C-alpha cells in the first residue's frame, strides 16, 4: 500500500503540472460526468443501507450485525475500517506536501496491526460482548472502568471523526464546487441518517464493498501512473522533483525533524491501533 501511495503521489505532482487545468486558486468548473459517476456509487451504498436497515431489529443486530458475518467478510470490513480517509487521502497529501517523511504514517499503521492481532484479538473475543470495556471491566469494578473507557473512546472517536469530516468536506468542495462549510454540514447530516437507520449491518457491508473498490481503484491508479512514466521509478522521482522545483520531496526531515517527535509519533501509531474503539468492536462480530 505504501508503495502505491508514494508512487501515485509523486506522479500526481508531475501530472498536475502537465495537465495545467488545475491552478492553485479558484474553483474548478462543475464536472458533470464525474458527478454522475459519483452519485451512482453513493446511491448504491445508500441502497445497501436501506436493505440492511429492514433487517436490523434487536440491539445485537444494531451493534454486531447480528453475528451473521463470516470471518472473511469481517476481515474485509476490518481492512475497510483501517483504510480510512487518513491512509488514502491524508498520507498521499503529506508526501505531496512534505516529502517522503509522510510514509512514517503508513509504516506506523502497519506495525500497529500485529500488536492487535497477536496480543489482544483473541482475548477480546473471549471476554467481551459489544465494547472493549466489557473486557477491561471483566474482573474490575464496572462503574469506574466503564466510565473511563467511555470517555477514552469518545475522545478518540471525536478526533478521528474530525479528520474524516475534513476529508469529506474537501472532497465535496473540490467535486461540486460547494463551500467547505456547507459540504461538512451535508456530510454530517448524511452520516447521522446513515448510522441511525443502517446500524452495524449496513456499515459492515459498505466497508466490505468499499475495501474491494478502494484496493482495486488504488492499485489501478498505481499501475497507470507507472505506465505513464514507463515503469521506471527513476523517471517518476525525477519528474516529481522537476515539478516541485526542489528535491525536498526526496529528502528526510520534512515532517518529523527530531528523534523525540519521531518516537512519539511511532508509539502513538503502534499502540493506538489496539485502543481504537471502532476497530476493537469489529472483533466481536462474525461467526
Amino acid at each position, binding site marked *: 500500500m505504501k508503495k502505491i501511495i508514494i508512487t501515485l503521489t509523486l506522479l*500526481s505532482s508531475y501530472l498536475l503540472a502537465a495537465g495545467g487545468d488545475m491552478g492553485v486558486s479558484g474553483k474548478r468548473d462543475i464536472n458533470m460526468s464525474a458527478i454522475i459517476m459519483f452519485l451512482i456509487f453513493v446511491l448504491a451504498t445508500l441502497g445497501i443501507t436501506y436493505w440492511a436497515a429492514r433487517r436490523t431489529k434487536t440491539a445485537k443486530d444494531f*451493534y454486531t450485525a447480528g453475528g451473521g458475518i463470516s470471518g472473511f467478510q469481517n476481515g474485509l470490513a476490518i481492512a475497510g475500517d483501517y483504510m480510512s*480517509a487518513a491512509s488514502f487521502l491524508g498520507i498521499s497529501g503529506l508526501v505531496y506536501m512534505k516529502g517522503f517523511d509522510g510514509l512514517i504514517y503508513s509504516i506506523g499503521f502497519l506495525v500497529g496491526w500485529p500488536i492487535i492481532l497477536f496480543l489482544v484479538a483473541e482475548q477480546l473475543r473471549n471476554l467481551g460482548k459489544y465494547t472493549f470495556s466489557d473486557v477491561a471491566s471483566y474482573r474490575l469494578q464496572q462503574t469506574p472502568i466503564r466510565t473511563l473507557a467511555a470517555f477514552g473512546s469518545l475522545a478518540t472517536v471525536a478526533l*478521528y471523526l474530525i479528520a474524516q469530516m475534513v476529508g469529506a468536506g474537501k472532497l465535496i468542495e*473540490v467535486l461540486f464546487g460547494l463551500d467547505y462549510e456547507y459540504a461538512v454540514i451535508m456530510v454530517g447530516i448524511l452520516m447521522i441518517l446513515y448510522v441511525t437507520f443502517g446500524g452495524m449491518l449496513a*456499515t459492515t457491508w459498505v466497508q466490505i464493498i468499499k475495501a474491494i473498490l478502494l484496493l482495486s481503484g488504488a492499485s489501478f491508479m498505481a499501475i497507470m501512473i507507472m505506465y505513464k512514466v514507463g515503469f521506471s521509478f527513476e523517471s517518476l522521482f525525477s519528474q516529481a522533483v522537476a515539478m516541485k522545483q526542489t528535491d525536498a520531496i526526496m529528502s528526510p526531515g520534512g515532517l518529523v525533524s527530531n528523534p*523525540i517527535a519521531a518516537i512519539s509519533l511511532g508509539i502513538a501509531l503502534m499502540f493506538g491501533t489496539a485502543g481504537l474503539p471502532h476497530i476493537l468492536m469489529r472483533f466481536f462480530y462474525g461467526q
Partner: protein
Amino acid sequence: MDTIKGGIIGGGNMAAIHSAHAIGGNLFLGFISAVAFATILAVVSGLTLAGASAVSHDLYANVFARGRADEMVEMRVSKYATIALGIVAIILGIAFEKQNIAFMVGLAFAIAASANFPILFLSMFWSKLTTRGAVIGGSLGLFSAITLVVLSQAVWVGILGNKTAIYAYDNPALFSVSIAFIGIWFFSITDKSENAKKEIEAYEYQFIRSQTGIGAEGATSH
C-alpha cells in the same frame, strides 16, 4: 518544518483525487471520489457506532441504569448519541479545515494509545492490576494526552490562534503513554484494599477464559 511549494485545489489532502483525474479523466475522478466518499462514510459510521455504544452500552446501560436497562431504550440512547456526535463532528470539522487528515488521525491514535490501550492491555496480561490503578493511571493518560494535543502547534497555534506552541512536539504519545503505564503500575501495587485482593484473585479465571474461550459468548451464540 519546511513545506514543499506547490499548492492544489482543496489543499494537500486532495493530492490523490487530483492524480485520479490526471490519469483517468473525469470518469475515473468520479469513481475515485465516490470510493473516497464511501470510505469516509463507512469509517465515519463505524466510528460513530463505536462512540454511540460507549455512551449507550457503557455509560447508560451499565453505569446509569446499573445493568437493568431495556434493550429498546439502550438503542434509543445510542441513536441520540449518534446525533450528538454528528453535530460535534460538523462543528469541529469546520474548525480544523486546514489540518492534514493523517496528522489528525495520528492524534486520535495518540489518545487511544494513552487512554484505552494501557487499561485493555494490562487488564489482560497483568494480574496485579486493580480498579484504583486502572482508573487513576488511565485518567492521567487520557488527560495528559488531551492537554498536550491542545497545547501543541496544531491546536494551540493553528486553531486557537496563539503565537507559539507550549508543547514543542506534534504528537503527545511518548509522554502520555508513559504517564499512563507508570500511573497504572504505581497506583495498582500500592492498592492494599480488600477489593484489590479479590480482583487479583479473579485474574486466573479470566486468563483461562481469555485463552480458551470457555464460557465465552463467542463460542456459543455467534
